[in-house]
């Protein structure tokens, strides 16, 4: 992402960002879908199943979870963004060790789990 002087001035003046960057982002999103044969329904089903699997191990915010297609240079990637809930002292909330999961809460750094 490039940030230009104009972007900063727009931010300071609380103006809308110039429309070209909006156009670029919208295109990237819509093309990722166009280029794959995945329908929105299939993608949504996949999202729910992925969330279910992950939710077995860590507590995640099911409402916030998103699975999307992103594209760059005609390469399309499936990107899952699954915000993990944290405990009061900032640790990742692991589920009760059902299948002998070790109590080993990692230092929480960045909630986003990009794949």
């Amino acid at each position: 992402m490039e940030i230009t002087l104009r972007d900063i001035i727009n931010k300071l003046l609380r103006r809308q960002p110039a429309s070209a960057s909006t156009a670029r982002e919208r295109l990237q999103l819509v093309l990722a879908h166009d280029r794959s044969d995945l329908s929105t329904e299939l993608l949504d089903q996949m999202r729910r199943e992925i969330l279910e699997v992950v939710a077995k191990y860590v507590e995640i915010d099911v409402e916030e979870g998103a699975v999307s297609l992103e594209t760059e240079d005609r390469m399309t990637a499936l990107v899952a963004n699954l915000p993990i809930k944290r405990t009061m002292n900032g640790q990742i909330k692991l589920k009760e060790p059902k299948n002998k999961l070790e109590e080993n809460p990692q230092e929480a750094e960045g909630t986003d789990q990009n794949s």
Partner: protein
Amino acid sequence: METDTRVILICSGKGGVGKTTLTANLGISLARQGLTTAVLDADFGLRNLDLLLGLENRIVYTAQEVLEEECRLDQALVKHKQESNLSLLPAGNPRMLDWLKPDDMKRIVDMLKKQFNYVLIDCPAGVEDGFKNAMAASKEAIIVTNPEVSAVRDADRVIGLLNTNAIKPVQLVLNRVRPKMMANQEMLSINDVTDILALPLLGLVLEDEQVIVSTNRGEPLTLNSVNSPAAKCYLNIAKRLQGEDIPLIDPAEESTGLGAKFRRLMQTKIF
């Protein structure tokens, strides 16, 4: 007999982005360079190439009669008055669409290949049969698009189709570029479009009122108004097709004066 004829599809997906205007101007420019060029109007539903070239009153036969063997190819070809290296093969009746098959287009193009250095195929908009027939007859393609979301999206569709049909090279022409809007970041930049579509840029064409004037007259800009902004762009594209190394016009330099300086300052990259 020409064995190394280049057959180039001029296509876009979205309608009205400038395919026919590009075909007419490239045809004139290549003919100027001494290359025998045929422009084939493959937009049988809504033919216009004849009008843009000012040849609408000289059509006797069309591709249809050639295919039906009612006339010879050279009877249907309309030679341009000023540029004798350029010939148009007009589109037939829209009803041709009912029976035309990819093999018919191949037959026509094979005939043209015997006589010309270049065959430019002006495609219909869309990705339906009309376009697919034209695609069957060609090896390489030029995608025309505008720096607008809908045009870029539709171009992407067509690029996908061209890829699956092993058509290459596929190059990009970005038409109707407005330097001021690009500088203000209110229009997708050249890099945005080439990055998103992942295609090499054959050239860009500036937005130019003269295009409309030239259409009114039936005289492509590259014929009589070679100094207009768009004409220069078309001429450069023709030279690049021929392998000449012509630098791209920098749209930022097209707008001058204090306003342009300010806009360039605003584009300074901070990060």
